[in-house]
């Protein structure tokens, strides 16, 4: 995986497309040390070579240039990543949510987002005599 400067993200893919990497495989995000990383993979179907690229998003800006004008296939992945991680793709015209009913509220894939279902349902494993956390919830998880 190659790490790319966010400012050069789209340029890098434009160059890869020119070099024959014309199949857009996937794009997603990953929360690494409380910072969001966008990851994408493109393939050259002629020689079966692929390129996996990543860029660390500036948390203050929370945005990266959209690849939609380079790869039409990036649109679906960017829409999904936008609604799930709250990343803004500069230049992505189609911002309709895919799975969420609206883009209001906290992006569900962020580790800091406490899922409503886990707030509303009491954890059956809570011991009576001491505090214990269920697996997979954030540190300061609090029951409503």
């Amino acid at each position, binding site marked *: 995986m190659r790490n790319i400067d966010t400012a050069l993200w789209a340029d890098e893919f434009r160059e890869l497309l020119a070099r024959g990497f014309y199949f857009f495989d996937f794009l997603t995000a990953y929360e690494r040390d409380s910072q969001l990383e966008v990851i994408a993979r493109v393939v050259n179907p002629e020689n079966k070579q692929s390129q996996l690229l990543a860029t660390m998003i500036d948390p203050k800006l929370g945005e990266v240039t959209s690849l939609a004008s380079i790869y039409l296939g990036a649109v679906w992945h960017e829409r999904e990543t936008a609604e799930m991680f709250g990343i803004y793709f500069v230049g992505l015209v189609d911002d309709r949510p895919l799975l969420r009913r609206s883009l209001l509220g906290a992006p569900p894939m962020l580790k800091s987002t406490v899922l409503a279902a886990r707030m509303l*349902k009491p*954890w*059956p*494993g809570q*011991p009576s005599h001491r505090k*214990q956390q*269920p*697996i*997979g919830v954030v540190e300061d998880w609090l029951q409503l």
Partner: protein
Amino acid sequence: MTNPSGIPAQAHGVIALTASACTSCMICVRECPAWCIELESHDEEVTEPGARRPRTVSVLDTFTIDFGLCMYCGICVDVCPFDALEWHSEFDYAAGSPGGLIQGINELESWQSKP
């Protein structure tokens, strides 16, 4: 090994409970990713003949598995230190309501006697 209907005996059909083996340690409840197991217990003191002082044992009051929610992963079966939970291949227990898929001690124990 298969049961009479040709289904492997270890098929993830339903989870059977042996209540007498359960120590109410809560490990299964806490490990369940679907939060579909609930149990309640209370402590009782038992004095065994010849013992110098009584010992405290946990007595199971309720134990339920919500098979509507269960993802049949088997983590509870794997983590139980006392083999109180095990797989049974029975699959024929559809219900007319979601509540009908919530099984208590009696129902969970009844799977043990099925072929």
